[in-house]
């Protein structure tokens, strides 16, 4: 529990420090840290997001977590390799956009709010809220969805 709080604080601090650089359209933050594997095909991560309102911040955090899982991989976990090998080819795919625009909720098993605090963006002074969550994602279901929609290949060549 202490470790979780510490990582939450670290994430909040790093997210706060880097706000001025993450406002480009279509970019997602990298404040995603592997926590545990609660079961086969599942992954729990801590992620942070920012938005005018709490709900938008949650969306930002979840989209960041999913973007990292899909295109960057989560270091230290079994999902250290990105699920989608070619980011440039797939990031504008309709199904990927659907997931990042809110469709991710179908693959989130559990989402707990760890902390929230009001923040002001360095770049434009916009006020908002920074939230940090622990999120358990069903990687197996996500992979299956991507396979079904031909975003990634099934096992084999």
């Amino acid at each position, binding site marked *: 529990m202490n470790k979780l709080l510490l990582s939450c604080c670290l994430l909040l601090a790093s997210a706060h420090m880097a706000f001025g650089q993450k406002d480009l359209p279509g970019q997602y933050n990298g404040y995603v840290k592997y926590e545990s*594997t609660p079961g*086969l*095909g599942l992954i729990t991560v801590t992620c942070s997001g920012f938005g005018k309102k709490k709900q938008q911040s949650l969306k930002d955090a979840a989209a960041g977590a999913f973007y990292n899982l899909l295109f960057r991989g989560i270091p230290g*976990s*079994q*999902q*250290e*390799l990105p*699920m989608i*090998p070619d980011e440039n080819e797939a990031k504008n795919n309709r199904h990927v956009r659907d997931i990042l625009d809110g469709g991710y909720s179908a693959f989130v098993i559990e989402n707990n709010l760890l902390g929230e605090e009001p923040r002001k963006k360095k770049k434009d002074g916009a006020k908002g809220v920074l939230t940090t969550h622990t999120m358990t994602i069903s*990687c197996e279901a996500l992979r299956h969805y991507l396979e079904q929609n031909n975003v990634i*290949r*099934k*096992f*084999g*060549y």
Partner: protein
Amino acid sequence: MKHQLFDCLLFFACTLLYVAPLSVIGQPDGQIKPKIMVIPKIKEGESLKSVYDSNTNVRMALAKINEAFLKKGANLISFDAKLKEAKQNTMIGKSSGNQSDYKSTVLQMSGSDIYVEADINVVKHGQTSASSVSVILEAYQTGTSNFLGVKEGRSRITRTDDIGFLTAQAMDSITDGFLNLMQLKFDDINKNGQSVYVQFSLSDNSRYTFDTEVGKPATMLSELIEEWFRKNALHGVYNNQGVTEKVMIISDVRIPLKNPANPQSNYTGQQLFSDIYKYFKSQGLQIKRDIGTNNKMLITIL
């Protein structure tokens, strides 16, 4: 009468609407599922069969990785079944004195494209009576021995004698990652072609060596073969490992997954041999195939 005709048409339309999507779902996606066999890793002097039969942990690790492959819809070959088959095979009986021969013969007999070796080590932690298990999984292509991936997993250090439980824990920590790593290699194969090992040798009473000049214009046999691979390997990728008067080894030639002449069908080792055969025939040479799997081909020039 009109009503009957209308009912008939309605029924026909409904049937079409119901069946059409099914036929789309039922179509194969054209993806190739390689045949995979999981075997225990043996040390020098150990027997593949006795390690498998006597060690429950080995069997458990193999079952775990088999389970993970099955969940992915992989095309699995049962090592247990192949061992039983091998026992009845007289050819195996002859080579059973040599364990590495035994392993390669079992692999060859299995017809697998890929094999995964599972190495299991039980570690006892001093006087605490605690134990842990480490598992190393290594994947290779059967014919070429090309390396496809490796993962090492460890269980927690626990005070228990239930080594099977620890083995399962170690396996659970790596199976997903291992399969993801393999898929990365599969994607590469899909893009850059399948690897095949091709070895040419001469029959005892052959009138050729690899330095003999054949064809018109007269070209050294080895050069003629290399020329063919240069033209026919996918993206021109092949590796001529070496040539002597009597043997020529193309240790890795990339072939397409789909037949260029008919993209609906797979291009297999059999088709590669058939193409090589036609080429040799056109040069007035006769060949025979000693071993021909999807990844390994031993060809003798008569």
